[in-house]
């Protein structure tokens, strides 16, 4: 058991940035109730953030527990070290289907219908899902129902039935989802962006009618056995319970499920592309969906925090970020515009996005290139840096508003292999970011010239052809009868 005696005092910085903009000179300045908000000061805020306690069950399962008796409820979330990245070649969609049938396929002892009936009679929930880099599960129950719900949860994890009709149903649902996958422009753009971004890597595979047809019940069982082992699972539990009793309940519910050797298949990291590439998918739409981005820094990279701050200023920080300010506020060219950065283990993804009417497509793409380029030529000054740092530091308190999230957060840190003082040091690390760091992050880690540009829309209506940015590769969107 990893005891952490030291509680951290989070100081919410009382922020004042005088001089970024000159104070207003309106006609009501004398009114005390209209005083300049930039000059307001606030009492300090001190807070001992709750922290979940880490335990390891006898079968190797890692458990984070956080007691919170406010409501007579218990929530469990689980992370399983797996993911759709482990879909075998030709069986794309297997991981996701495994999670679905794990939940819907009953157990060796109970039919799917019995399980559903029992859970829904109590208003309880058990769900499983699959992401690219992990699998997850969740449980929600009233305190008095928890023992029964936990036993169903454990039965599903330990003795899944993979009921053949439910396997068939999951395949049919997956096929229909593919048939409908070109109905929504955002879905098309993100999917095709991902395929190009991870070209030659399992992360770039997407399910097809053929890959789904290939999947058999035995594949689901094999996938399950490979990854769903107690020592490959993390639990985060919060709510109205006593830690000691919870550990006992878990040991009991999971007894007979022992640790096993889990050999994770080697999955190479995606490799960045060498040059610029432009992709276009034609669809009869009044508005273009545009993505422009590239692979980026992994979690734990020395420039991780500077790049976070940089992204906030570029397009992650709302109305005052450069992209939103120029493209939305100043020019009225978009409702949805901004940038995103996700650091993952071993790699990351950075991108900008915008949706604009067909006839301003070229103009917006030019602006995206220009504004990203501008971060390098004209890196943010101290006003922007202070704004972004204050925002990130002051927002941090919201990481602790829900016990369930606190437990999940800590569990995810361990899953990602981040140091366990990550949260304690978060504000410190953000506040350590300097102008030099930002300049370096912009110079070294923004690569408009090596970006993937993905455009979904109606090319005939664009203000200027996409080809003026370079050679365009056309994506044929499949039509299903």
């Amino acid at each position, binding site marked *: 058991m990893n005891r952490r005696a030291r509680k951290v005092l989070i100081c*919410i910085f009382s922020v004042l*940035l005088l001089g970024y*903009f000159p104070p*207003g000179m*309106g006609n*009501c300045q004398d009114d005390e*109730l*209209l005083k300049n*908000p930039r000059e*307001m000061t*606030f009492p300090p*805020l*001190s*807070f001992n*953030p709750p922290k979940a306690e880490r335990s390891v069950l006898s079968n190797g399962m890692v458990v984070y527990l956080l007691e919170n008796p*406010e*409501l*007579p*409820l218990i929530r469990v979330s689980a992370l399983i070290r797996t993911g759709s990245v482990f879909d075998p070649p030709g069986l794309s969609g297997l991981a996701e289907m495994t999670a679905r049938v794990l939940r819907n396929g009953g157990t060796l002892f109970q039919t*799917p219908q019995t399980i*559903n009936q029992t859970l829904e*009679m*109590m*208003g*309880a929930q058990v769900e499983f899902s699959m992401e690219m880099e992990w699998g997850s599960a969740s449980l*929600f129950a*009233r305190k008095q129902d928890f023992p029964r719900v936990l036993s169903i949860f454990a039965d599903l994890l330990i003795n899944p039935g993979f009921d053949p009709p439910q396997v068939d*149903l999951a395949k*049919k*649902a997956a096929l*229909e*989802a593919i*048939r409908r996958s070109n*109905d*929504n422009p955002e879905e098309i753009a993100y999917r095709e962006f991902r395929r190009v971004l991870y070209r030659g890597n399992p992360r770039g595979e997407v399910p097809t009618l053929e890959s789904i047809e290939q999947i058999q019940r035995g594949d689901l069982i094999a996938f399950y056995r490979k990854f769903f082992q107690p020592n490959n699972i993390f639990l985060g539990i919060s709510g109205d319970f006593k830690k000691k009793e919870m550990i006992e309940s878990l040991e009991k519910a999971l007894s007979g499920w022992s640790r096993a050797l889990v050999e994770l298949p080697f999955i190479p990291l995606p490799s960045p592309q060498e040059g610029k590439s432009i992709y276009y998918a034609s*669809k*009869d*739409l*009044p508005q273009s969906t545009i993505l422009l981005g590239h692979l980026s820094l992994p979690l734990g990279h020395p420039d991780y925090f500077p790049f976070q701050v940089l992204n906030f200023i570029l397009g992650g920080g709302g*109305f*005052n970020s450069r992209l939103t*300010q120029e493209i939305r*506020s100043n*020019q009225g*060219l*978009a*409702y*949805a515009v901004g940038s995103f950065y996700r650091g993952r283990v071993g790699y990351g993804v950075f991108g900008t996005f915008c*949706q604009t*009417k067909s006839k301003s497509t070229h103009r917006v793409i030019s602006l995206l290139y220009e504004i990203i380029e501008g971060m390098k030529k004209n890196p943010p000054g101290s006003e922007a840096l202070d704004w972004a740092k*204050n*925002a990130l*530091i*002051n927002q941090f*308190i*919201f990481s602790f*508003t*829900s*016990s369930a999230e606190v437990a999940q957060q800590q569990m995810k840190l361990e899953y990602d292999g981040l140091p366990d003082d990550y949260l304690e040091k978060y504000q410190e690390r953000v506040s350590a970011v300097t102008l030099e760091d930002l300049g370096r992050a912009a110079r070294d880690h923004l690569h408009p010239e090596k970006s993937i540009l993905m455009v979904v829309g109606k090319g005939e209506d664009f203000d200027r052809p996409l080809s003026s940015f370079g050679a365009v590769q056309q994506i044929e969107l499949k039509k*299903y009868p």
Partner: protein
Amino acid sequence: MKRRFRPWGILLVGLLFFIPQDLFSFSLEDRVKEYTLQNGMKVLMLERHQSPTLSLHIRFRVGAVDENLGRTGTAHLLEHMLFKGTQTLGTKNYVEEEKILNRIDSVVMAIDTEKAKGEKADKDFLKYLEETLKNLRAEHKKYVVKDEIEFIYSQNGAMGFNAMTSQDTTTYVINLPSNRLELWARVESDRMLNPVLRDFYSERDVVMEERRRSIDSKPDRKLVENFLAVSFIAHPYGRPIIGWPSDIPNLEKRATEEFFRTFYSPANTVLTLVGDLQPEETLSVVKKYFERIPKQILPPPLKTREPEQEGERRIQVVDESNPQLIIGFHKPNPPHEDDAVCEIIEGILSSGRTSRLYRRLVEEEKTAVAVSASNGYPGERYPNLFVLFATPRHPHTAEELEKALLEELDRLKLEVVGEEELQKIKNQIQTDFLRRLDSNSRLAFWLSYGQSLFGDWRYILERMKSYDKVTVEDVRRVARKYFTPRNRTVATLVKSTESP
């Protein structure tokens, strides 16, 4: 993406549920502190010290339903405009700025008048006007501090600074560290007293992009828009919240300001504060800033009521996308007792994997990939709809699903629902209510919703009790009364066969 509204708002109902008193100590009755300011503004406060944060919701009882024909989209555009600042926020010198804003308005009006002449418009004059406008805008820019409210809030650690416009209400939401209460009071009272709708004309363009994104590029949303438009022939619930595409670019600034003055009145306002607060101190801050807003008379309520439907209505939307089906029936809104019965029917039909529609259409017949029922569309201030949505699985058709859905509605009319099935829905409703109580923002949402729509936040508890009273006989009676062919509207999304 900011200021999302829910164009076909997944119902605001279906989430509020009653908790039997013996279940736990978290009794809302005892914990919600209620106060009415001298100007009629309602204040609701709920202490929760889980973290040093506050969730702050300001809800105005005004929405798309209050718009006039030709001005659809006003409530939503106004919501966007209230983020543009005040006489002291967003400007370097309002006295000077105002002069330019007035000139811009005059020039834009002249341009609109000239353009309205169509072929006969004086092109040289137009060119001159547009040149003038360009210069004025450049001049205006010198005085503007862009998005200053958001700048101030964000550096103070705001989360989820946003607003939502629905048919019934408009809500401005923010979460702040709890020591920032006064900052919120300062900014929000100013937004209510001295808003300046600067950059009005470019924001119309932003909203047009929002419309293209949320409706014009999404066949399923187009279907909903069309479905509502034929379901309501008299009542404004048939109009899209975001506005018709021909209205949005023509919305006028003066009329929008007038809409603000008419409806954003203290008597129409609920301030809801949930989180790390001390009610007395909090109230004194709230009073100091908000009580000075002058009292105001509200316009008379809308008299239009949807006439009884005289026969089935049936429409299609033809698009490049795969089929979908919507079936709707008119019904009363709360607090009518039949509304609670419809809520239970929603659960029987589509709540969870044991629900009737999921079992039959998704699991057994495999004709659908998704199917759901929703009570209370598209709002709750006026009589509304009970709606079924279904997504067929190829090669099955919307027609097949329609037949099956109507059979399931007939079953409700003929057979009596099992007591156990009814109890299951009531249990789900209660547990769901509990599940949604451990978040400041959800609490603020529901308290303000009850207060704003029904005049008393306790209504969310009353409503839970009314669900609990529903009997199997009620279900049969209500199904027979409303799920009739005459009262039915059917909309289908049909895949276009010819290539575009």
